[in-house]
Structure formats: C-alpha cells, structure tokens
C-alpha cells in the first residue's frame, strides 16, 4: 500500500501536469516543459562523465548535435530517407557513443583544465563541420540546417506537433535515462567511475583498467546526449548548427554543477530549474510595465543578469549544489560532529 502511494501519486501528478500547465499558463509553457525534459536527459548524460567519472567535458553539446543531425539526415526530405523513429533513435545514440569514444581516446591522459580545453575544441569542431559540410556535396545543409524533419511516428500514429504527445514521449525517456543512471551508479562500473574521480592512480593500482572504464563513461554519457538529440530533431522538425554552440554545453554543465554533481535527483532538479528559470524571467519586462508604468531595464539583458546573479549566489552559499547527495550531506554533518567533539575536548582541557 505504501509503495503504491509512493509511485502512484507522483505518476498521477506527472500525467496531469501538462494539462494543468496548459490551463494555468498556456501551451507555450508545455513546450518549455518539453524542452526541460530534453535538458534533463542531457544533464543526466553529462553527469555520468562529469559527476561520476570526474572528467570535465565542455563540448558535450556535440553529442546532442550528432544525435539530432543523424535523425535529421535519415528522416527528412534532405536525402529523401524516411527511416522509422524506433530505428533512427537508437542509431543516433549509438553514433553519439562512438563519437564519445572518438573524443575519449586521445584525451585519456588529460584531466581537469586540460581536458576541458580539448573537449571545448571538440565541441566547436563538430559545430563548424556541421556549418560547412554543404559544399562540394551538401551533406548537412550548412548554416541553413535541415528542415521538414519527420515528426516522431509510432506505427500509424504520428506525434505531429502535439506538445502533449511529446511530453509523454520525453517523460518516458527521462525515466529511462534516470533509471539507467541510478542502476549504473550502484554497480561495479559506477564504483570504478567514482574511484577514478577520487584518485586515478589508486584506482589503477586497485586493478581498474582506467582506460577502458573512462572510455565507457564517455560513450555512455555521449549516447544519452545522442538520444536526446534525436528526440529534439523529431520535436522541432528543424536542426541547424546554431542550436549546438558552446553556450549550450556551458548551460548543461551548469545544470549538473548547480543541481549537485553526481547526485541524480539533484541533477534532474538543476536541469529543470535552469531550463525553466530563464523563461520565467521573461516576465520581468511586463512586470515592470505594470508596476512602474514603463520598462526601465531591457528585459532580455536583465534576464541574463539575474540568471548570472542567481548562479553566483548559489555557488557561494551551496558549493556542493542545491541538492547534494546524502553522502555529501553526511560528510558535512560528520564534520560538525568532529568539531563539536574537538570543542568538548578543548573545554575539558581548559578545566
């Protein structure tokens, strides 16, 4: 009975959520929530690389691009191919995973800042390739991108442009990626990832083949990105290199760090917060209008200003993230315990 309540109530809420949002704020907001779900998938993927294995990746959006473009190329009039969704999506995840290994292999010896620079370069390379592969043969459509991408279709039923249908599709994949992440975290492989994050030399000395395990982390993380990319292409019906710039990578990294690196629920929370918050801050303009009668500060610049301020404040006050893992919390309370203990000892010594 208890487990039923534990799962049934959240499930019911998630099922009626898009309709409630539509009723309260309009369809635009359902669309924003759909995008938030895509970001959750991306953040969970990046969390494997950054949060678990501790490999700082600043070019993560490249894998999102690989998944999206593969979908666009194989299911649009661009090449006249119209492969079904259930085939293209896993292909996209698989291709992104291969790209993950491609990025991982030359960077195995790098850590921290150096790795960040190389991955940043990798992300840009992919974007620039997509931007320029329209001559002499038009492969990616260049800066114009690819449009008229087939919407997701399951059997005879097309998702069309229904924000509700995509909501449930994305929700399914979010639950899937969260499930896989959780299972991986508490497994032999997950422990090896975390061990590498904690101390790579010790991990290697304990018999962990750090090369393979790191490549596995890159491939797993990237395939989540590819999955999300495929869904994005089907949802938007249009892809162009612009959607895959450095800012996107930085944004996804912010979601992971802000939510609580390595903590799956925290990362999900961070992703939802950071994808919804900038949209919510759009209302700052109309708000000024109604309070002061005119707009003092341009809302678009104020939006990013407030957003940056929020990030700085959170990092100052909660460096472990908004929702850190219970272990992290225990670590803090344990420190408190030691401090109390030491204080009593000092007190005893003073008597």
């Amino acid at each position, binding site marked *: 009975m208890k487990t039923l309540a534990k799962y049934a109530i959240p499930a019911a809420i998630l099922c009626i959520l898009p309709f409630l949002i539509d009723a309260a704020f309009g369809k635009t907001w359902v669309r924003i929530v759909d995008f938030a779900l895509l970001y959750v998938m991306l953040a969970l993927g990046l969390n494997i690389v950054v949060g678990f294995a501790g490999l700082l990746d600043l070019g993560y959006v490249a894998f999102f691009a690989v998944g999206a473009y593969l979908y666009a190329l194989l299911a649009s009039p661009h090449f006249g191919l119209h492969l079904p969704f259930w085939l293209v999506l896993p292909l996209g995840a698989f291709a992104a995973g291969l790209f993950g290994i491609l990025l991982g292999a030359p960077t195995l010896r790098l850590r921290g800042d150096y790795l960040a620079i190389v991955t940043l370069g990798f992300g840009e390379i992919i974007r620039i390739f997509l931007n320029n592969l329209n001559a002499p043969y038009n492969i990616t459509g260049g800066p114009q991108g690819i449009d008229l991408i087939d919407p997701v279709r399951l059997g005879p039923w097309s998702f069309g442009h229904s924000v509700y249908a995509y909501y449930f599709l994305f929700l399914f994949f979010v639950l899937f990626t969260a499930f*896989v992440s959780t299972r991986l975290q508490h*497994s*032999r492989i997950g422990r090896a990832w975390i061990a590498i994050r904690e101390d790579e030399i*010790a*991990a290697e000395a304990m018999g962990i083949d750090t090369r393979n395990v790191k490549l596995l982390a890159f491939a797993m993380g990237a395939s989540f990105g590819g999955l999300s990319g495929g869904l994005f292409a089907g949802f938007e019906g249009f892809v162009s290199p612009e959607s895959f710039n450095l800012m996107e990578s930085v944004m996804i990294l912010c979601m992971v760090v802000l939510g609580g690196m390595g903590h799956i629920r925290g990362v999900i929370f961070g992703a939802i917060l950071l994808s919804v918050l900038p949209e919510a801050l759009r209302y700052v303009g109309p708000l000024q209008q109604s309070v002061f009668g005119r707009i003092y500060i341009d809302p678009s610049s104020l939006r990013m200003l407030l957003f940056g301020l929020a990030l700085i404040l959170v990092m100052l006050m909660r460096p472990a993230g908004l929702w850190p893992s219970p272990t992290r919390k225990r670590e803090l309370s344990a420190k408190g315990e030691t401090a109390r203990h030491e204080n009593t000892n000092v007190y005893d010594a003073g008597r």
Partner: protein
Amino acid sequence: MPDARLLEIENVSKHFGGILALTDVSLSIEKGEIYALIGPNGAGKTTLFNVITGIYKPDSGSFRMEGIDLSGKKPSMMAKSGIARTFQNIRLFSNMTALENVMTGRHCRSKSGIIGAIFRNGNNRTEEIETEEKAMHLLDYVGIRKHADMLAKNLSYGDQRRLEIARALATEPKLLALDEPAAGMNHSETDSLKGLLERIRSDGITILLIEHDMKLVMNLCDRLAVLDFGKKIAEGKPGDVSSNPLVIEAYLGGS
C-alpha cells in the same frame, strides 16, 4: 620441491634525468615470508615499489611473478596478477564509504558490465552480494567493520591505514606491498598493526614492506634488504643485516 620464489627482481634500473634512482637491483621474495625493504630517505625504496606495481616502467632489468614476466605492464595488470599495494601518502577514495572503498578493490575479481548493471540479472545480483559480503568480511578482518558506512576521509588516521590494507586485500593478492604502513602511528597502533600483518602472513599472503620503524621491522620480518643511493647494499636475516658494517655506515654516516 616446488619453487619457493614468488617474486624475482633482476637487475632493475631506473633513472629520472641524471638521477639514478635504482641501479641493478636484484632480489627475490619467497612465498609466505615478510620481506622488508629499508634504507635512508631517497634510497629508492618507493621507486622500486612503483616499478613492481607498474606505476614506473624499469629502464632495464625485469621482474617475474611466479615465473611470469610482468616488467613494464600497466598497474591494473599487476593487480590482476596478484600484486596489491598501499601508498606512502594514503590514497583512499575519500568521498566513498569504507565499504565502497573495499568493494572497489574487488573490481578486478568481478566482471559485471554495463548490461548486467542495468538489468541486474541473476549473475550480477549474486556477484554484487558476494562483493559486499567479502568487503564486509575484510573490514572485519582489519578491525574497522563498525565504520563501514563512514566516508573514508572521516576515518581516523590509523583506521585509514587499515582501510587501505583491506582495500588491497580485496584484490586477492599473492604479494601485499605496504609502503610505510606504520608511518605516523603511535606505539599501541604499531603493535596492533604488527598483529594484523602477522595474521595476514599466517593466512598465506606474502608481504613486502617498506618501513622506517626499525623496531617493527626487526621484530616482524623474516628477511630484509637495505637500499642506499639506489643500490642494494645488504640482504639477509634481520640479525645479520643490522651488524653489517655497510648498513651501519649508510645509516650513521661513514668516516
């Protein structure tokens, strides 16, 4: 008669730039003994350790474990081949619990991959349960079972040393290499460490030990070698070595 030699090191040399850290060091360690490596600071003890655990590749020379040449292999291969180690400066996985640290040590003796982890099939479940049971047993063995759920970095110094030993034992080594396990310990901690090492030996694991605590070394080890400026200057039973004039000179400074 079966070959009693477990690890044979032959003419291993290693230099860093112009510094000869090891010059033609040869020694052999027999099964079931506690073999100590002593020498002044900078004598090359840790370098030799790093060579046989794969962190450094030797410039020349080789070493064999039960007759199999392992020189120049990766550290993870050394662990798989049965050489486990601890570090001079403790290198635990700080933000993992004590139990998780030891479970991680079982990595090379288990084999579930991604698929097993996601679907949690029968094999994977049995293996996870076994991993956890063995890890718990090892925590008990080194005497820190009650701290199983504490983060490694919150353990006391002595317990961290013990945890490192438990983690190394989890790889099911034939040779346990300990780099200054008693460093920073007080008398009673050193005594209980001695008890633990004797117990490990009696359970059939050979121990290679670097240690500065002479009282501990002389009471504990079966044989020892003395390194000075990267060369082996003496080898033998504790009593013989401590009266060797070369050793006395290396430690006290010759005229």
